[in-house]
Every structure is written in C-alpha cells, then in structure tokens.
C-alpha cells in the first residue's frame, strides 16, 4: 500500500472514531437533558402559598408569621372570588327551575376548577384526602387550572362520520349577564395575588416522607429503600464473589468441572433480570420463607444473585492481572499459598475488584424486575434498619415505574416522577464516580 492511501485510510478511521464519540455524546445529552431539566423542577420551582401552607401544616416547616401574612393577603383576593361564587349561587336560587338547572350544569365544572385551584371552597366539608385539602402547590399547575376555569374544552361532534376536533370556548360567555360573569376576568387578573407565587427551593424533596401517595412531599422512603437494597445485595454478593474468584483463579484445577462452572457463571450473567425476580419469589419467599412477606432481605438476596456473576468476573480479571512475579516472589520467600493470596494478590487486585463491585452496586440500585415480587411496594414508609428482615420497602426504580403507569393521578405529578429519575441517575453516577476515584486512590497507594 502506498503512503498516500495509508494516510487517507488512517485519517478516515480517525474521523469515524471521532464521529461515533460525538454521536454518543449527543445521544447522552438527549437522554440526560430532559431528565436533569425536569428533575431539577421537583426541587427548584415556583411554589404557591398553598405549598408553603402545606409544608407548614404537614411538616411543621417554614416561618409561621410570613406564611400567615401571605395567606391573609391571598385570602383577601380570594374572598372577592368566593363572594362572586356565593352571589351567583344565591342568584340561581331565584331563577326559574329550567334556567337554574341549565346554569347549574355549567356552574359545576367552574366550581370544581376553582376548588382544584384554591383548595376547598368556603362551606365545603374538609376533604378526607390530603390531595384535596390544598389548592395547587406549583405555579405552572395553577396556570393550567386557570386555563380550565377560563375556557371549556369542547369537541365538535356534529359530524358523526369524522373524528372530532377540539376547540376552546370562553366560559364567561355562558354566564354573561349573571353575577358570575366578572369572576373570570377577576381570577385571570389576580391569579398571582391569590396564589402568591415565590421561587421555592424544596430541599425536603429528598428527605421528606411522601404524603397521600406522592401527591405531596418527598421521596426519602424510596431513596432509603434503594440504598438498603443495593447495600444489602453487596453484603451478600461481594464476599461470595471474591471468594469464588479466588477459587477459580488460584485453586480450581483446569478441567471439565471448572469449565462447566465457568460457563454456568457466564450464562447466569446473561439471564434476564425478571427471571431472577420470579426465582427470588419462588425460592426465597415461598420455599425458604426468609420472611413472611416481601422484604428487603428477600430483595437483597435476589439482587445479590443477579450481580454475583459480574462480581466474580471482575474479581477474576483483577486477580489474573496481578503480575505472576508478585506471587512467585512471595512464595519464594517461604509464604504459604493462603498467606500469599491474602497479603499479596488480593491487595494488588483490590482496585479492579472494587471497581467491579461498585459498578454492580449501581446496577443493583437501578434494577426493577428483581424487586417487583420480592421487595418493592408502591406505598410504604421509610423503614428502620431492624425492619429489613421483615418489611418491604418502596424503592426508586419500582416507584418510577409505578408513577409512570399505575398511579391514578400520574399526569398531575410528573415532576415527582422526574425527580425520582434524576435521583436514581445521580445515585448510580455518583457510585460509578466513586468507583473511579477509589480505584485511582488505591492504585496510587500501591505504587507509592
């Protein structure tokens, strides 16, 4: 090959390499940007007075004087709107039955939207569910509700043979000439006065218990559950994995039996995680009865089996990469085999072993399928360390799925879901980052 062709080939190969790195970086950006952007919105957002009142009443947090002052201002503006509502209700009483009935059906959605924006209206009984005891806690949601108050979404069903198109009708038109007519302009104009929006840094999102199935409050039980499960899995899998790797590399005689064991290990690494989940349910809970119900213990054991092959593999590689001369020198100085492994080989292999371990820890924290049947619940409180043997726990991965699909108010609390996703991604990234740092630190120490 002449020099010119070789150069061209060389350059184009570099270009392709650079290109794929750029594509990967872009893909990562596309995935991470919305996660970070929306997830941050769970902690930093424009909160309304309802949010501050909720925090004060439910968590005893915040300055009562400022909250009361702001509430008073908000109530002054709300009072005017409430008077319009009650004025119109009185007006309807005096109408002919037909007119009253017609207005009533149009009025019901307005009233519902008002109560969803501002919380229970005066005269309404105190709702049992916390979700209905407060108005909108976030400004962007309050604006959505304002739109619901001002406009009615309608569908044009006049032609039954085509799919209808939506259109919006200002509600004010339907109430023209009544005492309710000024309400719409008033609410539109004074929304900020009634809600008192204010930039909010809700750090409690990470440390608070959840309230009324995640509609308010934080995600501490999920974060804690994730740590319990991942660390629990590590406690089982790490020692076992390292011992198995030492056996494979130092003790096992190459032969049929060992090669079967090795391929069994590789196969195990490729088994889908849901299979481990079902195995965990059938074996640990139904057969072994490690706990009465789902529990952190059962979940940790299941996760441990799942990450075991990876840990064994990583530890094996790390041990094999220790220079043979270390071992020979140690044995040559009269050390026993076990002593050599414990004092020479394992310390030298430690960076690799720990990296493998922490990456597995990240995987254990992120997996959903193995814990569905063995440990995860959609609602539960943070559990104490003594409860890990008997209690199930919420966990980030499972609750993200739950909020995405099963939750009855999923579309209202997307910010909580994104907050959970961001937390989980951050936890896994932090774990991996600490693996890299730890590895660097240890190898430096070994060299030095």
């Amino acid at each position: 090959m002449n020099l010119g062709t070789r150069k061209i080939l060389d350059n184009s190969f570099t270009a392709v390499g650079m290109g794929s790195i750029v594509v990967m970086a872009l893909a990562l950006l596309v995935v991470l940007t919305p996660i970070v952007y929306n997830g941050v919105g769970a902690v930093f957002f424009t909160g309304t007075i309802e949010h501050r009142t909720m925090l004060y009443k439910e968590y005893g947090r915040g300055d009562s004087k400022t909250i009361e002052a702001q509430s008073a201002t908000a109530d002054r503006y709300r009072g005017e709107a409430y008077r319009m509502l009650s004025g119109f209700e009185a007006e309807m009483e005096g109408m002919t039955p037909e007119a009253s009935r017609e207005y009533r059906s149009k009025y019901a959605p307005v009233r519902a939207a008002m109560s969803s924006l501002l919380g229970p209206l005066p005269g309404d009984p105190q709702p049992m569910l916390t979700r209905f005891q407060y108005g909108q806690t976030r400004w962007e949601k309050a604006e959505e509700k304002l739109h619901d108050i001002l406009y009615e979404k309608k569908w044009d069903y006049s032609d039954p043979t085509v799919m209808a198109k939506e259109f919006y009708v200002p509600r004010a038109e339907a109430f023209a000439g009544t005492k309710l007519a000024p309400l719409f302009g008033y609410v539109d104009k004074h929304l900020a006065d009634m809600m008192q929006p204010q930039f909010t840094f809700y750090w409690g999102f990470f440390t608070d218990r959840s309230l009324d199935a995640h509609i308010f409050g934080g995600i501490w039980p999920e974060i804690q559950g994730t740590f319990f499960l991942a660390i629990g899995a590590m406690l089982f899998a790490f020692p076992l994995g390292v011992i198995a790797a030492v056996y494979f590399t130092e003790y096992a005689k190459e032969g049929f039996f060992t090669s079967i064991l090795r391929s069994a290990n590789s196969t195990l690494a490729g088994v889908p995680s849901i299979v481990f989940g079902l195995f965990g349910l059938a074996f640990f809970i139904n057969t072994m009865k490690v706990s009465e119900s789902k529990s952190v213990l059962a979940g940790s054991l299941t996760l441990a089996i799942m990450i075991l092959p990876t840990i064994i593999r990583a530890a094996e590689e790390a041990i094999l990469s220790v220079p043979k001369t270390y071992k020979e020198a140690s044995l040559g100085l009269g050390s026993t085999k076990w002593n050599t492994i414990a004092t020479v080989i394992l310390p030298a292999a430690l960076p690799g072993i720990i990296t493998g371990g922490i990456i597995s820890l990240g995987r254990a924290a992120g997996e959903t399928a193995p814990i569905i049947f063995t440990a995860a619940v959609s609602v539960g409180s943070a559990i104490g360390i003594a409860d890990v043997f008997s209690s199930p726990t919420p966990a980030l991965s499972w609750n993200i799925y739950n909020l995405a699909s099963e939750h009855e108010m999923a579309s209202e609390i997307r910010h909580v879901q994104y907050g959970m996703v961001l937390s989980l991604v951050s936890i896994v990234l932090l774990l991996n980052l600490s693996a890299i740092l730890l590895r660097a630190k240890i190898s430096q120490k070994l060299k030095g």
Partner: protein
Amino acid sequence: MMKRILLLLSVLLFASVDAVAVGGGIVIDGSTTVGPIAKSFAAYFKNRYAVPVTVSESGSGNGAKGLINGTCDIASMSRAMKGREIAAAATKGVNPVAHTIALDGIAIVVHPSNPVAGLTRAQIASIYEGRITSWKGVGGPNARIVVIQRESNSGTQGSFGELVMGKGVQITRNAETQASNGAVKNRVSSTPGAIGFLGMGFVDRSVKVIGVNGVRPSLSAIRNGSYPVSRPLYMYTNGQPTGVVKQFIDLAGTVEGKRIVGELGFIAQ
C-alpha cells in the same frame, strides 16, 4: 479514606433506625383498581393508629396468590376469587374471606375526539371479539378500532370478560394488552381510534366515557344496577380478620372510609 466511606455508609444505614415502630404492620397486595383506595386507607390508618401499612399493586391474580402463599395479610381484588384459587387456598390451609369495600363501574372509554357517544353491550362484545373492526360499524367515522385490554392477571379484565363478553368468549388476538388502569388511560388518551375499559376512579378528562345500553356510569346508575358493567371491589383476608387487620377492613364501613372512597371516584356501599 476507607474509614470515612464506611462511616458514611453506617450513618446512612442507621439514620432512620428510630423512624418507625418495629414490625406489626399490615401488608396489602393485589388489584391496581383497588390501589387508590388501599393507598388512601393506608395513609389514613397510619396517621390515626400509627400502624405501618404497605401497599403493592401487582394485579388481582397476584394478590390472590399472595394471600394463598401467606405473603400478604390482605389481598385487594377487583373480582371475586375463582373456584380454583379457593381450592388452592384450601390445600394450603388458607380460608379466604371476602369483604366488599366499594362498588365500581367499569367505564368504557374512547378518545375524546371520537363522536360515538354510546354503544350497546353487544356492540362492545363484537368489537372485543374482533367482528367489528372499524368505528364505521357502530355509526362512527371510518377509522380502525384499536382494541385495548388488560393482562390476564387483572381483575378488571376478568370482570369485563364476565359482564360484557359472556363466559368463554375469546377477546380478539389483535387486542393490545396494557398492564394497569393508568396505562390503559394513557394509551386511549393518545390514540384517536382506541377503546378501552377503566375502573371509575381512574377516569379523568383525558378520555371520553361512553354509555352502555344508553346508560352512563354515574353514582346512581351503578348503585341501582342500571349500569350493566359494574362490580364490587373486595379485600380478602385469611379467615375472619382480627386485630389491626380487622380494624383496617372495618374502615370501609365507617363514615371516614366511605368519604375517602367517594372522593376517589368510587362508590361507597
């Protein structure tokens, strides 16, 4: 370095040791339809009696299995236990007792853009059998019907099959399966040609509820039985409940319990 990390981990582990009383909680598993009721009861119960309650929503079938295997105290179910489940329970010495906690209509929902306002039970059955495949066949626009069903584990699916399709009638293989009420709602609200069915507590404005045999699922229509697709929601216990489990089940009969059920969009009995 190592020590500091260990210290950090142990602090994390013990941070919440005294957060909650140890053990003695109630474990609930089962229906996603009953999920909102179970979760709200759990929150109320924990506030009032300081007894921890955990709720999983893995489907009625899994709830029944959990009760049979003794892994949950209460199985919430949106259908009655089947004969073979009761038989399986008997072999394990479990005696499932049903407690009705609410009534629920199964709302038949379509995309809000769909002009069809109501169907007969027979029309719905034909759509799910795959004999009617276009909305034109029921007086609507010429658009393909996207049939959405639930997984076999679902109690809502079981009830729908029994109440609408009749025993032994197969749902078309073209039907798409979604794993929860929420997922059905998402799919229907984003697919103009879709039809699906939901528990009443999950209905919101993103989907359009259509009448069945000319009756819309309303509180009164479900209570007096004129809406044809309604069923009770159950919580099953092993034997007559005692202690905190009894207290929890009894909540459904109290004024507070009934108000919670009502606020969630279900019908208190």
